[in-house]
């Protein structure tokens, strides 16, 4: 594995664009700052929930990005098994890690919002449960990757798990959904997807765009790290 005193040959083989400014990342950070400014100062309070509702502009985009990230993991997995191109495996690896980060954001922001609005930190609502299991599946994916030395084997196993994980999602969703609806819950006020006023919708779209940009920037960074690590492993293996 990599060590501080890596051979000089590996250093020199690292792509030159590594140094300097990562413009995509900078844009993404600025976009997030703009989105947050709009969320905090230029979007009206929701009438019933008050300020707590504003976490929604972080929560929903993060959730959508997480789903997108795991979709990329599955597609890249299928692509890898088909073509055997390690670039696809690096894309899957990067997307899975970023997806877990976004899922963590969803799991943290959800309870913070749920406490004042639903009156409880956690409830076994179908979507919450699904998100929690998504987190477990892809943390398992990362653990699996860390447990395999052989590069090609790691790529194949990850692809298999990434594909099976995406097949599992509808089943978990269906079973926890049926579980919840068959069991009436204690009375918890849940807003039934209201149609958003235009200002709120605009904020949501801006925030979503910022999150997608942030997702792409993180995946790109993580992809470069993976590429450099592969290069280093190759150099050391020689």
């Amino acid at each position, binding site marked *: 594995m990599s060590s501080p005193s890596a051979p000089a040959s590996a250093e020199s083989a690292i792509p030159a664009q590594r140094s300097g400014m990562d413009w995509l990342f900078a844009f993404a950070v600025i976009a997030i700052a703009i989105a947050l400014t709009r969320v905090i100062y230029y979007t009206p309070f929701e009438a019933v929930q008050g300020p707590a509702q504003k976490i929604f502009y972080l929560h929903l985009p993060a959730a959508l990005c997480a789903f997108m990230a795991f979709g990329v993991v599955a597609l890249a997995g299928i692509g890898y098994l088909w073509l055997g191109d390690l670039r696809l495996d690096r894309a899957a690896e990067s997307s899975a890690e970023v997806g877990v980060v976004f899922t963590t954001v969803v799991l943290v922001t959800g309870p913070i919002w749920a406490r004042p609005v639903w009156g409880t930190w956690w409830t076994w609502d179908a979507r919450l449960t699904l998100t929690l299991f998504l987190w477990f599946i892809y943390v398992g994916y990362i653990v699996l990757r860390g447990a395999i030395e052989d590069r090609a084997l790691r790529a*194949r196993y990850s692809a298999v798990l990434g594909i099976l994980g995406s097949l599992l999602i509808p089943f978990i969703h269906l079973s926890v959904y049926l579980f919840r609806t068959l069991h009436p819950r204690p009375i918890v006020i849940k807003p039934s997807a209201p149609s958003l006023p235009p200002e709120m919708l605009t904020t949501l779209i801006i925030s979503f765009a910022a999150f997608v940009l942030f997702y792409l920037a993180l995946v790109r960074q993580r992809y470069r790290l993976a590429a450099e690590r592969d290069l280093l492993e190759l150099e050391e293996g020689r």
Partner: protein
Amino acid sequence: MAPSTLSAALLIARKDLAIEFRTRTAFFSAAVFALLGIVIFFFAWDPTAVSSIDLAPGVLWGIFTFSGLLGLQRSFGLEQADRAIDALLGAPISRESIYLGKAIANLVFVAAVQIIAIPAVQLFYGVPLLEHAAVIALIALMSAIGLVAVGTLFSAMAVNTKLAEMLLPVLSLPFFVPIVIPAAQATARLLAGRPASESVGWLKLLLAFDIVFVVACMLAFPYTIEE
């Protein structure tokens, strides 16, 4: 002459079961583990607050997955000694037949543990499981097929990793959620004396899971073999 996929699979299953039958170590430890689990759960609960009829389905199917993991762990671990797996891979049989054979052996193993565990739950929790033997057996079979389909594949993967057996539960348990929930819910409905038709939705979910994951895991298996 190369045998067909199914006959090769049955040969492999017979080999695994013969090893298990001669040693019986894994079966006894899984069966004792299941019994212990059932007994320990009994003491983790206040019988005046929750009736055993509400608790038993969860205990039964929760323990089912854990004891199943014990059997799955040794499925491919068995082939690690002297690299016996290389002989299997060198045999003129398809990769699918290796997977299928291992899965059939695991299915028999898991079913055998269930044959001990289900009456034990009836005995210790005083719930009428055996009065609904046919439906319970159907739920058990469908759950076992799903568990074994996924577990056999992950067992093949886990043995080739640094973490070995430790990885199997981390990978498998999320996949067992859509097995445990329908199985426990269908059992709970039966025990509550509801008509079997109320459980049909859950059984359909189990069936769909079995079909999707048996096919997907069989297709994925050749990729998990270390050449």
